[in-house]
């Protein structure tokens, strides 16, 4: 049974960014990348998954049951936004991470243990007493992730959480997401970066509020026609695979990283 399931969800929005007839399943411990250009509806989808807005029609199932209580959904789904500065509530890292658990009405000891645990998982234990203004962009996003997981959600939704970061910050955030997913957290990652999307277990391509492609990264990115018509690029690896294919070198489907391609080509050369 899927953790969260959207059935024929509609959310009309003038001037782009709405959703029409979106159906989507998020499995437990799944890792879904939602890829799309500007105005494709990624942020709207993120807000719907978090019950911040409710669809005009369609159903949202949580653990197979239709859930109407927004707070119950928000408790299960954590949200991390794009702008690192604007999503910090408090003036120290600790207090910011504590914001969620405080709103759950927990006892001080429970709040503290959740804060410590979340900071530990995100690898930023040493930042506990620091002011957010003295952190790098990547560190701020890790704090935002810690703040979300302190609520003990089953699913984490990231709305372009890396798009304002430098390469180092992006690496830090992506590796934290990978670790969380490895520990059984479901992850939904909205992005316009195909390289990031390729890290997920499955990819959904959104265009003008519709799901236009869905599947494993190798199937979505390996599609014959490419994704140009939906306003998104494909990862470097898949471009290379396509170029090799055009010049008569056919590779197996599971060769989906640069390293693997290099190894395979070396193997073939030595084999000849």
């Amino acid at each position, binding site marked *: 049974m899927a953790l969260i399931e959207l059935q024929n969800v509609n959310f009309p929005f003038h001037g782009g960014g709405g959703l029409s007839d979106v159906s989507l399943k998020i499995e437990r411990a799944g890792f879904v990348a939602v890829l799309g250009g500007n105005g494709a509806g990624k942020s709207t989808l993120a807000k719907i998954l978090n019950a911040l807005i409710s669809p005009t029609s369609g159903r949202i199932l949580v653990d197979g049951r239709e859930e109407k209580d927004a707070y119950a959904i928000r408790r299960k789904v*954590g949200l991390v936004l794009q702008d690192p500065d*604007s999503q910090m509530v408090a003036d120290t890292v600790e207090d910011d991470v504590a914001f969620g658990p405080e*709103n759950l009405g927990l006892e001080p000891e429970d*709040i503290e243990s959740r804060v410590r645990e979340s900071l530990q998982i995100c690898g930023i234990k040493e930042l506990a007493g620091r002011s957010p203004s003295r952190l790098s962009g990547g560190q701020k996003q890790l704090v935002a992730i810690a703040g979300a997981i302190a609520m003990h959600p089953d699913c984490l939704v990231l709305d372009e959480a890396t798009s304002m970061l430098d390469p180092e910050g992006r690496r830090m955030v992506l590796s934290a997401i990978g670790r969380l997913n490895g520990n059984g957290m479901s992850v939904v990652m909205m992005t316009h970066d195909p390289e990031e999307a390729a890290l997920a277990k499955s990819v959904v391509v959104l265009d003008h509020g519709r799901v236009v492609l869905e599947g494993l990264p190798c199937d979505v990115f390996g599609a014959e026609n490419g994704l140009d018509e939906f306003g998104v690029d494909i990862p470097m690896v898949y471009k290379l695979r396509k170029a090799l294919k055009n010049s008569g070198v056919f590779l197996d489907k599971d060769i989906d990283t640069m390293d693997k391609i290099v190894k395979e080509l070396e193997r073939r050369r030595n084999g000849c």
Partner: protein
Amino acid sequence: MLRDVTLGRYYPTSSFLHGLDPRTKLAGAVLYAVSVFIASSPISFAVSFAALCLLMLLSRVPLRYMLRGLAPVWAVMCMVCLLNIFIHSGSAWRVLLIAGRMVELVFISNLVTLTTKPKSLSDGMEKALRWLGLFKVPVHDLATALSIALRFIPILADEARHVMDAQKARGADLGKGSILNRARALAPVLVPMFVSAFRRADTLSIAMESRLYGSGKVGHLRPLAYGREDAAAYICILTYFAVMILLKGAGL
């Protein structure tokens, strides 16, 4: 100009004042403000000023740091003094007293924010004003709004600087010419500031709601509790206040 805003900023050191419960500091500041208006003679003013100096020493915040943030306040103070001289044609002592009172009020409130983290300040206000909840005043929301406002002062100040730099890079002439011209030149800075402040507020509200703000439950990471220092501080505050009243009663 904006870079130097220290109003509402927290200055982290470990002093006696920093360690006090925020409620103690708020109560102290309120009583002090009342005493400032009670004091009208040179002697009682000197006592209240001495108390202020003592507190500033106790806070271990460098004097220069406090003074730097008050630049915009000086202008207001000069205005008030001038108005007093010309309109009320007050005596020299009267004008001096009014200026002195303003200095004291500004410094005491500044001391509270310099020695108290915005978060504990809002926690303190929330707990001290909880009885207002009986009259359906949303105390928790107001306290949260206060701490967020304090947190975003430096962020918006930084942003104002970016906007001004961007305008300057395109040839805008900020901070030159007559006061009227300078005020006029601020409009293209203020408009984008407003837009971005609203955008930030929107994002922040999403971030807060997704973390269950408004669910009706409230917990605290560090619940406030009075310590022994607070008892000592309350005794000092009340003694000071009693002295001020006695001085007033004695006609001094």
